[in-house]
């Protein structure tokens, strides 16, 4: 094995030539590399805020070093367990429920024969993705309003019960969050699966037909296995977002009456870190969150590598 590798190494074309050969690819990937350098790697310097008592005028390097003080504050906070639980549950439910939808949708769209109709369906399904979150939450609270909302009018008409204040009932919060998330993103997220579906070799279907497979069997035994690697990679990548529940939508949706299920790490950090400018604490809790995400994504990748031979790296 080793020998073989060495041999390959020796035969390798010089780097300069390699660069020249792949110059187009390199130029194409350059913007993304620069993007990640500037917006993801450079800001990591800011992580050191977590270990300082940050004073803006002294700057990141000049602020007094406090070691793990900020982290100790995070763990001693009486709300910490609840924040962790809420963040995890909202992230988990979002993953569980919103992950299968784009796949099912892509499979369904793929079966549509009329290509004009197919395009129309696809375009309509993307649309919600481009609506701003503020508008989505505005729609939600208008439709669900206990006094003026359509949903409650229908509900009271059918059941004869009093209206329900959906937006301020803790028990509906996660459902509303996840459901609106699915509605908004399933079309957009299906694009990658549709792309994968387009790459499936038609010869496979032809031979399956010859073997007498019906359409459902074709889907089950050809389409699904062909896009399995894509599905697994998407799953692994999404695992990394479980604890990364964004605060924009929750900030817009929650109120003190739903804090007990809706207050997540990001919103608490926002209230305390940005609004009350406790930057050290905010960064510490954010860093801790990222570490957990990292563990999730590495774990999922290891798991997938072990059991399915597909992995992100």
């Amino acid at each position, binding site marked *: 094995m080793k020998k073989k590798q060495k041999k390959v190494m020796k035969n390798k074309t010089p780097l300069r030539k390699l660069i020249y050969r792949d110059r187009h690819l390199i130029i194409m990937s350059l913007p993304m590399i620069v993007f990640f350098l500037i917006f993801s790697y450079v800001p990591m310097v800011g992580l050191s805020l977590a270990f300082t008592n*940050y*004073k*803006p*005028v002294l*700057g990141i390097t000049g602020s007094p070093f406090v070691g793990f003080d900020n982290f100790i*504050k995070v763990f001693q*906070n*009486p*709300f910490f367990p609840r924040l962790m639980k809420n963040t995890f549950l909202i992230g988990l439910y979002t993953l569980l429920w919103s992950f299968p939808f784009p796949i099912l949708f892509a499979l369904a769209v793929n079966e549509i024969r009329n290509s004009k109709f197919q395009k129309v369906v696809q375009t309509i399904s993307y649309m919600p993705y481009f609506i701003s979150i503020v508008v989505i939450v505005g729609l939600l*609270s208008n439709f669900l*309003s*206990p*006094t*003026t909302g359509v949903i409650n009018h229908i509900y009271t008409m059918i059941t004869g019960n*009093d*209206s329900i*204040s959906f*937006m*301020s009932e803790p028990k509906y919060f996660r459902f509303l969050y996840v459901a609106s998330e699915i509605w908004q993103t399933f079309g957009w997220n299906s694009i990658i699966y549709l792309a994968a579906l387009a790459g499936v070799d038609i010869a496979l279907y032809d031979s399956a037909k010859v073997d007498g497979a019906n359409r459902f069997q074709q889907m089950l035994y050809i389409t699904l296995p062909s896009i399995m690697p894509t599905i697994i990679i998407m799953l692994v990548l999404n695992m990394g977002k479980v604890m990364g529940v964004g605060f924009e939508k929750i900030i817009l949706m929650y*109120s*003190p*009456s739903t*804090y*007990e299920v809706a*207050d997540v790490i990001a919103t*608490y950090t926002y*209230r*305390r870190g*940005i*609004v*009350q*400018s*406790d*930057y050290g*604490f905010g960064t510490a809790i954010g860093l801790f969150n990222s570490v957990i995400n990292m563990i999730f994504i590495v774990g999922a990748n290891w798991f997938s590598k072990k059991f399915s031979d597909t992995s992100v790296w």
Partner: protein
Amino acid sequence: MKARKMMVCALTAAMTLGVMPTAAFAEAAKPELPFGEGETLTVATMDNWFATKSYAENLPVYQKFEELTGVKIEWEVMPVNDYDEVMGTRLAAAQNLPDIFVIPWEANADKLGFDGIAMPLNDLIEENAYYLNLLMEKYPEIRSALTTADGNIYAYPGFGEGFITTADEMDTGELTDPGANICLNVSMIRKDWLDKLGLETPETLDDWYNVLTAFKTQDPNGNGEADEIPLTATFNLHDIYRFGEAFGLYRGGNETSRWGADENGKIFFKDTTEEFKQLLEFLNKLYSEGLLDLEYANNGFDKTCEKNSRNLLGAVASDWMSNISTYNAGLKTAGVEDANWIPVRPVKNPDGVSQITNRWSVWKTAAISKDCKNPELAMKWLDFQCLSAEGIKLTNFGVEGDSYTVADDGTISLTEMATNNPDGIGSQEYLRSLGAWGQLPYPQAKEGYEVLWADQPELVEFSLGFAENEVRKPFPCNGTKADLPFTDEENSIRLEYETNIETYCDEMAIKFIEGKESLDNYDEYVATVESYGLSQLLEVEQSAYDRYLSAN
């Protein structure tokens, strides 16, 4: 009391000596116009409340300021809702800051100073702010409200009502006490519904309960359905705490104030008191009988307006009187011709007095940044645009000849253009479209509202109807969060405990009101709040309050 007497003595002494002593107290001389020919200042602020006219367009009011002072303003405007976040981040980065910036609402103004982002202003004010010095001589509490724990001032104040009577007084220097505020924050009710059901305006809690019940059961909107929302909170949960007045638990305005001070200067936390429990009991009764809007805890001005326009709303717990015309107009557009919202005097307290809060304290509004090249000019400009007679007229009435006219006898009145605008916007909106009633510090002069509400004399009359014993000064903590002079160390203690306690208190209050948690468990709730560090927080608030009092 003693301090007040001494102040009165000093004032009368000053009066008898004429206007002269002003010069002896302050070094700053009245600025001669124009004082900054050819100079430029950068100003960062949240954009106009009237969103379609941005300050970046150099609105007429600020064109006038440029003509008067010679100073050209370069605006860095941000949308109102993003300001806290965007400006907060810029201040944290502490680089390339504008000369003058409006302090983000949620930011801790004192900390900006301690951190060296905002410049100390004591000497600058002394030497350049003629008008502010004039005002601080009459009202020393302005100085104590501005002075931080390290003895420095880091912010130029903005003022609610209660300090300026007329603009011209700032010119002559003979200030008179404007007395009661005009635009109060009070409960409001549909007078036309009261009349229809033959009810009186409520005065006590029992009155309120009966009126609200009648609203719910006797179909005042006449559509045959019990769809009325008898009571709501316009902005948030804290609005309905106003009924705590009946139990002696004072709540002011729509600003969160969980802290109060008793007559001995001892600080207490309201959300764990026995009176607060009584308040929750009352609110629980309202909620369980359907008299309180289901959305009381997650409302907003837009939602409230919508419910009102659908002719569903009977009363709001706490709101600014300036919104009355908006509510009435909303109903009239919807076809309710006899719609008539009126302000209601606050519920009587246990002593039988109906009290309102006056002199809405002083806000730490604008700061001069550490990067400012010409702080003297910045201070002069700020002071001129805020408190000079010309400035007050511009910020309160807009541009002479356009939005207002002055009669020969000196009475100011708004023009047809403002009061009956062809684009259908209200007079306050029209003034804002010119740049008046803005975001930079300015005082709401008493005559400002008198002119603005010339067509609603009943509102002015309502406000002036409060006798002296019915008007009280607010606790200094009413405005922005940092109104008490906390030290850096005290601030970090507050950070540690305050978010947790506030989160928990609001959450539990809602559970108590909605009956999801029995009030029998109130003691446990109090114990939990205490375990979250209430005593440490109380200690900190107390020492800051003592500091505030000693600066008076």
